[in-house]
């Protein structure tokens, strides 16, 4: 596998996990809709910018694995297993959607399509992440999954997806525009930067987790 791609998976996955732990937990503690905001801003940003930059299907699943692993070491409050499952689910759903719907944005600058893609992608990520978490968390937790519980909250899940969908629709054109900026970095700078940034994310989160734990 391309070394540059592996480094990309490492840095984007680490940054995603880091933002989930630090920013997501802070938003949650402030009583804000952290799940909606994290999916609407951060998850879609890291998933989309990496997809548009590397154009490599499968990369986002690797990023999700790294981000979910980092999320398990959350030193702050929050549901570790729920969030880790949601991150993996989001990465998986993104891969599926973009396998079928992605296209070359350099040729097509239709703003309506870009906004629509943002809305559909983020709504799908949020709703599927929420549903998969509701199914898997009780299973992992040992309580067991009850279909009736899921059916009862399905309308709420579908309703809650609106906020991240609107955020996603608003920021997707900006992410696409950002991805067009040529930021080609030479290997001798790219690899050390990737390594240092990823190491920083991991040391901060795992170090804090060890200190708190």
């Amino acid at each position, binding site marked *: 596998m391309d070394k540059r791609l592996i480094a990309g998976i490492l840095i984007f996955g680490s940054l995603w996990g880091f933002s989930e732990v630090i920013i997501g937990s802070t938003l949650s503690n402030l009583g804000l809709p952290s799940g909606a905001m994290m999916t609407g801003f951060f998850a879609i940003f890291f998933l989309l910018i990496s997809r548009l930059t590397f154009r490599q299907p499968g990369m986002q699943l690797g990023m999700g694995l790294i981000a979910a692993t980092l999320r398990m070491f959350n030193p702050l409050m929050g549901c570790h297993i729920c969030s880790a499952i949601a991150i993996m689910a989001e990465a998986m759903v993104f891969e599926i959607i973009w396998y079928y719907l992605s296209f070359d944005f350099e040729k097509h600058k*239709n703003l309506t399509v870009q906004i629509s893609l943002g809305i559909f992608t983020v*709504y799908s990520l949020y709703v599927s992440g929420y549903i998969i978490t509701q199914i898997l*968390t009780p299973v992992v937790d040992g309580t067991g999954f009850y279909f009736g*519980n899921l059916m009862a909250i399905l309308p709420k899940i579908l309703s809650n*997806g609106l906020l991240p969908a609107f955020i996603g629709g608003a920021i997707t054109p900006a992410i696409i525009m950002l991805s067009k900026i040529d930021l080609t970095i030479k290997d001798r700078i790219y690899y050390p930067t990737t390594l240092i940034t990823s190491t920083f994310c991991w040391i901060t989160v795992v170090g804090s987790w060890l200190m708190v734990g």
Partner: protein
Amino acid sequence: MSTGKEKIIPILAIAVLLVGTFSTFYVHANKIDGEKDTITINNQKFTIKELLESVEFKTIELDERNISGLALDKLIIFSNVNCPSCHKYTIIADDSYQKTVNWEDMKKGILTDYKRTYFKDKAHAFWIYNVIEIEVI
């Protein structure tokens, strides 16, 4: 890119927005207006004040903080459930959010005076706000 994709993506976006909008109306239309100071357990209505005076308190440590509330297992015993360990319990919030737990979980859980459940060693998905009913199944 095919023209088909350019057409289908806005349609998909409109579809999810419509699903979200209708779901929002549905959730608000079906929100259960439980009485603020009461909770239904095993089909019997209790006031929070009555429970606070009658059921044993318990403190559990969660996320580096101590939280006190009514012991859920004692609450079930107080509501005269026969053979508590033979049943499962569905905790229902006013927005229909619900989770089903077993007796062992109930022994580790509390219900606060602001009607929120917490469970020791369980995911936050089981921390339910605005509980209106505990159904015995």
